[in-house]
């Protein structure tokens, strides 16, 4: 796990589950390299739980328990379904081992379309959560 904050909105922190599920994860990393996200300031890292959990990439039925485990660990966090795979199974919508949408198991606060969505979309989605006053 790594903690980041939005470069232009430092109050907006994200927890990135670094175990990449699939290609979408690279876009989150791209947002980091592009300077859209910066590592969170040390100090408040451990004290506050993350406000947003990003599910990016293909969730398979085999991996689902581990993903749900993380979700359960942060009951107050908002869920972002990033990319077609996390939302609906995406290109693997007809594949038996793939979970067709994380929203079958947990409420999703924001869906981001794309395969993969662009890093800017990631930031825009975080901001939309922040503006809705949901994110702290």
């Amino acid at each position, binding site marked *: 796990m790594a903690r980041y904050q939005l470069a232009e909105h430092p109050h907006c922190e994200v927890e990135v589950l670094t175990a990449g599920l699939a290609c979408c994860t690279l876009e989150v990393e791209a947002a980091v390299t592009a300077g859209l996200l910066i590592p969170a300031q040390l100090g408040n890292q451990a004290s506050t739980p993350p406000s947003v959990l990003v599910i990016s990439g293909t969730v398979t*039925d*085999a991996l689902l328990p581990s993903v749900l485990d993380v979700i359960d660990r942060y009951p107050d966090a908002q869920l972002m379904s990033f990319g077609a795979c996390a939302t609906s*199974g995406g290109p693997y*919508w*007809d*594949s*038996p*081992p793939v979970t*067709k949408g994380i929203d079958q198991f947990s409420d999703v606060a924001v869906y981001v379309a794309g395969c993969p969505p662009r890093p800017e979309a990631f930031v825009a989605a975080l901001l939309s959560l922040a503006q809705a006053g949901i994110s702290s």
Partner: protein
Amino acid sequence: MMNVSVTETVSPEKWRERVLQAHDHGFVFFDFLTAIDRDSGVEVVVRLAFNDLSESISLSTSINHASLRLDSIADIFPGAGWHEREVGEMFGMNFVGNDMQQLLRHEALGLPPMRKNVVLSARVVAEWPGAAEPEIKQDGRKVGNPSRRRQRPPGVPENWLQS
């Protein structure tokens, strides 16, 4: 540069022998081994080349669905071992002489996923939007005199939808 490329079909019984022969002839570079599921059986293909890649050969053999066994060539080309296991996992082939432990697949999944008789239930359950026509609504309702017969979605064999 691949200059000369030959394709040859061999019988399953002669498979290992032919691969060994090719190896001794100078085809010592193992490119890949893969399979294709056909109506007549599972076709296993191996591609070999000279070390300078000046010549290459593709050998293929067809194995009946009823007994998917073939001699392993992993002792001739150690690199083929991994490919054989992959084909074993994806097509249900048994390469005699190789370690056929599953590599990736979840055991609960049942049928080898690359076989054409594996029904992708999502494709059967979901309504294919392509079945609509200018005079047939998405739910199958006819609103005129559609001339063409209903089409089948690509990648869905005919008997899937009936089962």
